[in-house]
């Protein structure tokens, strides 16, 4: 007599694959929002498994702020070549040049919030009706309220108080012309699940996630990487530190942790012992208690 039990990772994987296949079946023109971070890499890996031996039937969309880690860009181009998928890039710089978006000023200026306009314009230009993203409910309290299939009106806005109930495994992707859905196959995954899965499946990820030596400064309780986009105070002197990144966003807002974890096994152990959330090092979330909810309502990832 077999034991008909799945492990938690098998069950999460099966759920995510089901969602990705629903996206393919219910929408005409879906895409995967690909940032080069671990969550969008896992979503892409799951899509590869969901449609095997066919190729992933969606293009990857990268909203490029121009403030990237160079390692992320190399990784992105490699994965696109390996999977033979189409890459669509939306450039924040173009939104700025055209006057659609306005660059923030000051020392803490970032292009994080500017991504929203570029994202919505890219969705509109390519007429995407479903954008698959790697957001997880355990990341942030506004994201804990997200549906798997999350409706966006014709302005790309999220109305958190008026969401469609989602029961069992039934997903309602009905929409009018011009509206779209954000779909989150990793909703039920935690940071720990992601790392265990990357380890179990031996998924390639950017070297930035592993402990490495880097020039950094100490700012807002985190180690911020030195790049051409960072403005230093007179008091700030770059030093060499062994760090790794728990999340990857723009190079201007992503802080690193001191770490010796240079293998996936060590990362899993480190995550298991972590006492801070992974987004604690993200300047974009520190602006106010509702910064994620406010950005999401306007159409952010």
């Amino acid at each position, binding site marked *: 007599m*077999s034991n*008909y*039990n*799945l*492990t*938690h990772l098998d*069950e*999460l*994987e*099966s*759920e995510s*694959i*089901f969602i990705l*296949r629903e996206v*393919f*079946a219910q929408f005409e023109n879906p895409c995967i929002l690909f940032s080069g971070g671990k969550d969008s890499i896992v979503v892409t890996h799951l899509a*590869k*498994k*969901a*449609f*095997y*031996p*066919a*190729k992933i039937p969606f293009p990857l969309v990268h909203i490029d702020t121009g403030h990237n880690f160079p390692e992320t860009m190399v990784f992105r181009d490699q994965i696109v070549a390996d999977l033979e998928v189409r890459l669509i890039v939306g450039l924040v710089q173009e939104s700025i040049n055209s006057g659609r978006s306005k660059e923030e000023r000051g020392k803490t200026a970032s292009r994080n919030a500017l991504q929203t306009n570029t994202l919505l314009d890219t969705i509109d230009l390519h007429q995407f009706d479903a954008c698959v993203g790697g957001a997880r*409910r*355990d990341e942030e*309290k*506004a*994201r*804990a*309220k997200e549906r798997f299939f999350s409706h966006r009106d014709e302005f790309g806005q999220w109305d*958190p*108080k008026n*969401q*469609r*109930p*989602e*029961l*069992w495994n*039934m997903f*309602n992707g*009905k929409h*009018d012309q011009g509206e779209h859905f954000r779909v989150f196959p990793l909703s*039920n995954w*935690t940071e*720990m*699940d992601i790392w*265990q899965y990357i380890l*179990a499946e031996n998924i390639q990820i950017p070297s930035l996630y592993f402990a490495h030596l880097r020039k950094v400064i100490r700012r807002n309780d985190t180690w911020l990487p030195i790049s051409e986009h960072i403005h230093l105070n007179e008091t700030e002197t770059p030093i060499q530190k062994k760090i790794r990144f728990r999340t990857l966003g723009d190079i201007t807002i992503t802080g690193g942790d001191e770490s010796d974890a240079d293998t996936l096994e060590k990362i*899993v*152990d480190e995550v*298991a012992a*972590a*006492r*801070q*959330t992974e987004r*604690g090092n993200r300047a974009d979330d520190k602006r106010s*208690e*509702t910064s994620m*909810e406010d950005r999401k309502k306007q159409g952010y990832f």
Partner: protein
Amino acid sequence: MNTYLEMELLRFTTAGSVDDGKSTLIGRLLFDTKSIFEDQLNQVERSSHRKGLAQADLSLLTDGLKDEREQGITIDVAYRYFATPKRKFIIADTPGHIQYTRNMITGASTANCALVLIDARHGVVEQTCRHAIIASLLQIPHLIVCINKMDLVGYQETIFQKIKINFEHFSSKLDITDIRFIPISALNGDNVVNRSEEMSWYEGSTLLYTLENLHIGSDYNHIDCRFPVQTVIRPKTAPYHDFRGYAGRIAGGVFKPGDEITVLPSGFTSKIKSIETFNGPLSEAFAPMSVTIHLTDDVGVSRGDMLVRSHNQPDLNQDIEIMMCWLDNKAPHPKSTYIIKHTTSEAKAIIKKIRYKLDVNTLHRNVENLNIGMNDVARVQLRTTKPLLTDAYRKNRTTGSIILIDESTHETVAAGMII
């Protein structure tokens, strides 16, 4: 290290309102399993301080939206995650008030287990019954009754026993076989994660131990083979020129290569050639696995079809009896046609007959007032434009459930459990 990879997943739901200690209990579970991070706790402490509270209000952890935090209530379903070395847990945390019945039903729809909280000072009240009735309606296999605030009744065994007997008297009317009772104090942590030193008379397990050890292997139907086809995979590349795979998630039973199957509704028969995944072919597949099935014959199969074992088939029905929960703030219109979704298939449906409304506090069947509004639960008959391949909900939660969608607003307006 390897223990992390061998965990099972348990989904449980809680329902509760402001005073019954639900948030404290969830906070306690997260706290004592070290699932709350320091920066989250700091944020809660800052917010509590701003609101003038002396203690950290752990409900601020679960209430995610600005309006919820400002009003101090849970409006929506919030999902929380924690893990022990044995299991990963998903909590669907829902409000408990009658006007949020639809949220409770949503949270309960995917749960293996329901936690029902009883205040030891008040015993079994209307809300207790409502939560248990909803758990029974949604066929949650396991019910854990936590008799909370034992610290406020001097940890007396007689009080626990009296409440247990009262609940058992009421629950004999319900359709739940596995019911357990645990005396706890969420505030002090008694019998939540650690055993209580105050209640040596209690010989059962703590709440966490119970959650870690509930037998959930048989929660899925492993007898009646059901494979609703999601999509057809055709790579159209040279090495896979003739590849034609039916992708889907197994809804019931165990499928093996060589099995004789029937494709419904067409009735064509064939054999399973192989069961494929990215990691290679499988010798068997069962619910809830996502796989791709190959047949030996080239029979026409598309989304919405179902592969079943030839000698064990679902019902084929255009008149479908359901227990329905109305989810929309606009009442159903007697003449309206709705889109009905059932597994991966879709049709149109009308609500043909409303047989009775069910009082979710008492199970009373109301045949006088049949006006349905948001949060009402009613037994109705649907008529669909094409036959659906259904099982009773109590036999299979996947092939036994439907949703109705409004054709013009596209809102999900009703959820139904097939009788």
